[in-house]
């Protein structure tokens, strides 16, 4: 038996023993996710137990080094773990911007002290993080940020405003881009800093979207003290790290074009809404549009697959994340417009438990942000034109 097969058997046995039954089913709603942090209210003892057991093995961050609390798994072992979790429909034990975003950045760019300080609590789900990048005036021009960090010897005093901070009102720490040098090219005076959200001068306000409540907040920074040892990487060199994280984010958002497993497809939903006649969608005009969408979505999903396969094989043009982000989010917007058309007025019911299309109106409106957040469609097209096609 190979080592990997041994690992699979051990993992399967461990999961069988340690994953509570109630944690072996897909999330029913967003509320089922475990985010951890100082003030997190566990939904159940099972949820807490599942997090603790996984964190103890470092499997909340399976591929991080064990010295920082991670699982220390190889690429292949990591894959086996995911497969075995998927086999029993085990829920992810922890949703975390710490694991997804700032953790990898600290691992790659941070000092040893920062690693020791921040990574273990992230793995254990003790500290919940939020991302302070965008600012009201900056928009697509992220590097044009204005939040100012004044050098005070051993610390900075930070003043400014962040926007689109997901869960800022629930997070314990923030990683933020701030301007530490206003006198150089805009990309060259930016630093990535970390601070506790309980620091005096930090306040947040939730943002209501056109689709209703949202995890987004505005964050106001009013003379906030940030210690110098909380800078990731070098002072004024934060833009490199930011770009690294943005590419990461873009490929996550791009995934929206796909239909998640278990979710009904657009075609199925259209049939629910419109009905069939002689085996064909009863509205031939809508059928044309849905067919066109289905074809495009096949292309999108295969392209995402091909990009992964090419990356593994060391082939392909490389930076396709801009294209996937563009195509995926535009596809998702079209999907929801077609759903609204398929259900008609019944699909626009804003409230109530017995709506035939559920929260469709809110979801439809929410998709409009897909082509704005994480780099607008326009920015993605600029990137493709300039970086890939060499137009300029």
């Amino acid at each position: 038996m190979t080592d990997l097969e041994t690992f699979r058997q051990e993992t399967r046995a461990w999961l069988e023993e340690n994953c509570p039954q109630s944690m072996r089913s897909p999330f029913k709603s967003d509320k089922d996710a475990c985010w951890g942090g100082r003030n997190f209210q566990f939904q159940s003892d099972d949820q807490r137990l599942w997090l603790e057991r996984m964190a103890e093995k470092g499997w909340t961050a399976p591929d991080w080094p064990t010295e920082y609390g991670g699982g220390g798994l190889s690429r292949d072992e990591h894959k086996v773990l995911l497969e075995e979790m998927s086999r029993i429909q085990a829920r992810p034990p922890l949703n975390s911007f710490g694991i997804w975003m700032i953790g990898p950045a600290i691992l790659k760019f941070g000092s040893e002290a920062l690693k020791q300080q921040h990574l273990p609590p992230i793995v254990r789900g003790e500290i919940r993080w939020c991302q302070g990048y965008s600012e009201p005036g900056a928009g697509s021009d992220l590097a044009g940020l204005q939040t100012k960090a004044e050098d005070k010897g051993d610390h900075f005093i930070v003043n400014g405003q962040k926007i689109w901070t997901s869960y800022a009102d629930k997070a314990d720490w923030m990683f933020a881009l701030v301007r530490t040098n206003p006198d150089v090219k805009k990309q060259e005076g930016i630093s990535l800093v970390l601070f506790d959200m309980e620091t005096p001068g930090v306040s947040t306000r939730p943002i209501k979207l056109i689709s209703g409540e949202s995890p987004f907040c505005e964050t106001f920074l009013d003379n906030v003290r940030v210690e110098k040892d909380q800078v990731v990487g070098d002072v004024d060199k934060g833009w490199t790290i930011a770009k690294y994280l943005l590419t990461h984010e873009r490929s996550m958002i791009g995934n929206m074009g796909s239909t998640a497993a278990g979710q009904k497809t657009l075609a199925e939903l259209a049939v629910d809404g419109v009905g069939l006649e002689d085996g064909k969608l009863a509205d031939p005009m809508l059928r044309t549009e849905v067919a066109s969408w289905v074809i495009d979505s096949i292309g999108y999903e295969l392209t995402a697959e091909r990009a992964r396969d090419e990356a593994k094989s060391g082939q392909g043009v490389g930076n396709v994340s801009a294209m996937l982000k563009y195509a995926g989010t535009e596809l998702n917007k079209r999907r929801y417009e077609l759903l609204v058309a398929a259900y008609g007025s019944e699909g626009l019911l804003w409230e109530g438990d017995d709506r035939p299309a559920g929260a469709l109106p809110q979801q439809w409106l929410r998709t409009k942000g897909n082509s704005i957040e994480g780099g607008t469609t326009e920015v993605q097209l600029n990137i493709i034109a300039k970086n890939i096609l060499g137009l300029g």
Partner: protein
Amino acid sequence: MQKLVLTEEQQMLKDAARGLFSEQAPVSQLRKLRDEKDALGYVPEFWNQAVELGLAGTLIPESHGGSEFGHVGMGQVMEEGGRTLAASPLFASGVLGACALMLAGNDSQKDILKGIADGSHLVALAIDEAGRHQPFRVATKAEVQGEGFVLNGRKTFVVDGHIANTLIVSARTSGGERDESGITLFLVDPKAEGVSVERTTFPDGRNYAKVTLENVAVSADAVLGNKDQAASPLQKLLDIGSAHLAAELLGLSSEAFDRAVAYMKERKQFGVYISSFQALQHRAAHMWSELEQLKSMVLKAFMALDANDDQASMLASAAKAKASQVAELVTNEGVQLHGGMGMTDEFDIGLFMKRARPVQLMLGDFRYHADRVASFKGF
């Protein structure tokens, strides 16, 4: 041939309407109604002012208290109301209600027109039974009982249903569920026994209701027009309604476009105004071109309706189809061009998108009307 321009009188009416809506029913009024979950769903003071200006009776003959200004006139009012997303019973009562009575009502039924014109009597049309508009697929039944009828069924998407004094209900008096013949219109008192009206909430915060009819007894007088033969006047009524909704979509799309263009001129990115980006300029120019085409189609549809032109139905459908398409384009682009700000509830631009979709769907979306245009054109 009549010129495709407004007469001086029509232009004056348009200007007056614009003044009233922008001052007395700005977008902030709709926002307030929505946020406060206002029970009426419109502001009576504003409605009174609109009535005072004669807007509710724009289509009604002078003999019944109206100003008889025709569809071109009323269309200007609808367009201007679209610009400020004004909430009022104008469309339900002043367009659909008034025209239903004018098309099919007998003399005593037409007495209601006076109440519509003076704003005291509100009418709502209860036609749809499913999410997608199929006006001749009627399952609601009206069975003969003594001298009158008894009604059973469910209606949905009834605009301003919960504030109406009279409901106009389509029901089947003969034929199968999909037959065009066998449909009859009834005037129903929403307070009558067996009628329940439930207000429903939509993205645009406007008034729509579900109406349930459970053994509702009505007299023979309640029949509007001829028994079994509602299809023809109903279709005419829906043509009229579609043209006026196209006008509303024209108004709201024009305003959403103007706001997007204004935002482009004030928003800077990468150190320059975003209005200087050619890709955005071309998209804006395309939208403007589309809006201009729509404007012509809406005006022509109204002129054809006023002239009883035999192309009126086709032109009304073409206008509603194009309006639905343009509104979808422009409201989506409106939010996109506003960037993140466009996604916030705080900015108004999203409200135009939220209003557009219900109006697009109402009385048939692009697909419904494009299908009709194709049929009119013989293919």
